[in-house]
């Protein structure tokens, strides 16, 4: 992912920006009618081409897939997959994609998306309980690595040849444990 053209990460700017009426953000549901927006985002954001079945499943995971609007324009999204764990009453959550269009980075949109997933995962009403959330980050994507570490994720594994189709084939596996497994 290319870094944003302008670095606006200094804390003072960010706070004034967030209070500005011209900087509005809001989360939105993914529906069969707007899933085209998510597809378009993913084509631009990720080198992986996702199969139609991927988008079919997205429509089934409810709050674990969201898009985010900046000033009413759809600029980012997150898609998770629920995974049952054999012999356990809990489930795992895998973040398949999370991304924001380049011009809209460093405005807190990614954090808002991730926080939404974390909050939903720990909500009492979520059953079965989510024991951990995990994901993969390609080698060399320091920006993403920093982002997830900031939100309490830890590198647990180096997966060699995880992306066999790309030049950089290796990936980190990161996870965050929510409920100690029994």
């Amino acid at each position, binding site marked *: 992912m290319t870094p944003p053209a302008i670095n*606006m990460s200094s804390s003072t700017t960010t706070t004034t920006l967030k209070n500005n009426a*011209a900087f509005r953000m809001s989360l939105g549901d993914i529906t069969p009618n707007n899933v085209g927006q998510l597809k378009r985002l993913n084509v631009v954001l990720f080198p992986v081409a996702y199969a139609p079945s991927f988008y079919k499943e997205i429509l089934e995971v409810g709050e674990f897939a969201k898009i985010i609007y*900046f*000033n*009413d*324009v759809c*600029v980012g999204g997150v898609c998770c997959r629920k995974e049952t764990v054999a012999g356990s009453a809990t489930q795992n959550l895998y973040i398949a994609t999370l991304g924001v*269009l380049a011009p809209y980075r460093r*405005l807190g949109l990614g954090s808002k998306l991730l926080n939404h997933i974390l909050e939903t995962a720990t909500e009492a009403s979520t059953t079965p309980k989510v024991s951990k959330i995990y994901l993969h980050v390609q080698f060399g994507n320091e920006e993403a690595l920093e982002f997830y570490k900031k939100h309490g994720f830890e590198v647990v594994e180096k997966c060699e040849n995880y992306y066999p189709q790309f030049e950089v084939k290796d990936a980190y596996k990161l996870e965050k444990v929510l409920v100690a497994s029994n």
Partner: protein
Amino acid sequence: MRDLPQKEGNLFKQILKCYELRQYKKGLKGAEQILKKFPEHGETLAMKGLFYSHLDKKEEAYDFVKKGLRYDLKSHVCWHVFGLVYRADKNYEEALKCYSQALRIDKDNFQILRDFANLQMQLRNFEGYVETVHRLVDMQPQNRQFWIGLSLGYHLMGKPDSSLKVLTTYEEAMAEANSKPDYEQSELLLYHNVVLSDMGDHEAALEHLNSIEKIVLDKKAIKEQRAKFYLALGRLEEAETAYRSLIAHNPDNFAYFDGLLKSLGLSADKLSDEDQTKVLDLFKDLKKEYPRSNVAKRLPLRFATGERFSKIADEYLRTMLRKGVPSLFVNIKTLYTDREKEQAIETLMLGYLAHLHKSQGFDNSGAVVEPPTAILWTRYFLAQHYDFKGDSDEALKLINKAIEHTPTLVELYMTKGRILKHAGDYVSAMEAVNEARELDLQDRFINSKCTKYMLRADKVAEAEKTIILFSRADIADPLNDLVEMQAYWFLIESAESHLRQGQTGRALKRFHQIEKMFGDFADDQFDFHAYCPRKMTLRAYVKLLKLEDQLYSHPYYLRAAQSAIRCYVSLFDKPDGDSDEMEGMTESEKKKLRSKQRKAELKAQKDAEENKKKAVAVQDTTKKGKVDEDPEGLKYLKIEDPLAEALKFLRHLEALASDRIETQLLAFEVYFRKNKMLLALKALLKAHKIDASNATLHEQLVRFSLAVRKSEIKPSTKTVIDKHWETLYHGQDLATFTGAFLKQQKDSAVGSVPHLISAAIAASLMDSSKAGKETAEEILFLMAKEEAKFGKSRSVENVQVAIKTLKSFKSARTQELKAQAAAWFPRATAFQV
């Protein structure tokens, strides 16, 4: 009722009751029972016909009614029934005649008179209407609706003073009876005020308005009218107060601001410098007072000029771009009638773009960091701006940049489609808009737009598949839902696409559907003639009547009628089905093409039959509605007298849009072919009066003159034509006439391609030799020679017509022009070889 014994007489009364109660089947049985004994009883026969008419058996209906009349010509019942049957068929003229007959026999029949009045209103026979309602008032003076009707009738026939007298008399009589103010009384008084103001006596109208204020419920109407009266009377200070109070009520109504300016004496189109300052200061205050009013922010742009304009525009544009208002360009482009303003806007916007690139601000002050959407909306605006200026390349560059920046924004793809459409690349345009559609499948607007673009690209099957995504799923032919919903745009666009593809039958079918829809509109008003005077919605009723009077001048009808008439005219010219495609082909080539078309036709027919079978099978289970039995519209192609069909479309235009030159040009084409030289002349004269310099008119004048010279014309007709010769041709011979027409093009700074086409056709008609053809070609190629002059007029459509014209001359230079056109419009699919 005549000569029936008591038993049958009672039965007859019962069947009359059945009609009133809409028990048509029961009534029919009763009638048949009487007829068993008295098969020659005219009134019963007529009633039987009436029941048939309501049971959707139209032929039997007319048979029986006519039979009834034959046995009893002197019965008002028979004539009344005959009128009712015609009325049910929307044949108001004939119905009116029957009613007249009935009234001649029974002149005081209340029910017939009442129906008669409604028919007269439908046909706008105001004199007759007033007369009829007068009799109704005499018969039932206590009945309010007849008084109202009488007043309406006078008002509509342009006699507001008589209308007023009726109203006053009625109000005086009713003053005591009805003292409690209610909606109906309120509307009546407001209508009274409208009549007064139509008489032009604003003083009296204002006084009346004040006197009824307490009773009237529509307070807004009172305020608006009062402000208008003050203005008309020149009581400007009071007008100002009135408009300021209206603005306080709704600070987003342009008309109120307009009124305020007028009351301040500041409404001139070109304001003096001093007045401009006054207006701008006024708006400064208004903006402060109504910070949420869009109109208060937008209107100053209309009045400001020069530096002041730039300053206000700067502030306005920044706010809108920051906010992200997609309609900003549409809103701004109305200012582009002023070249200076267009330039100022362009300078500002280009400045923003440069700064946003560098510093995320609209300027280099660094004071404000704009949201990342600001640069997006700036590019979006500029893309539309350059498209408007006809610079497709720059527009596409900008819109592609914007899409790269934010590929999820639907509007960007819509605009990209629009730019490509203007560049003549209909297929890529369609693809862009389809991308927009796929981003938001639940947006009906985008779905419809996409359908339209598909039709423009002549992808009818795809278009139909797309549009029915939003139509009713539970009917057998979902496309027919579009007809029921009166979706004009779809019918027009698909008709035009069929035309481009040479499917005249399918196109005509659509045009007839459109014509019928307008007919339905006209019919729909009928019920209101009785309803509105009863319910007192008089102001709305008068507005409705005025709207109906203008119905057929609607652009959609004009567009449909124009194409339909052209279709029928060319069916008349080429009855063996030569299409435009065949222009300039040899006989054997034509033969080949025809057999190809015939095969396609047969296949289509077979497909249609299969579809029908399928549809019928489905219909039996769940779906409602009929299946189209002639989707190809073959019956329209087989019509005996195409010009008569053309006349049907033309009649409405002549009645309601006779001041449009298109109407007269079409009228000429029809009458000229019918050999009605005087009517053709009349059309030419009217067109000449509307716009003597019209391009097509010239070609028609030349054709007319040549025909008059050649054909055998009655001396009396010739005299009339001669009388107008000077007006139309300035006494010139044809060569001089066309020469002068062409010289105008050569002399003017801005040239017109349609005029060149018209002159070329004229030249080729005057001289059918090789030399004539060469002259015509030379005229058309002027558009290529004089770049600066014809550049603006050289649109894709105009050049297409020019190429077609060359083809019709069988010109060897057709390909040459086409190659030229391909260079002018590198993206246009029409010119690609």
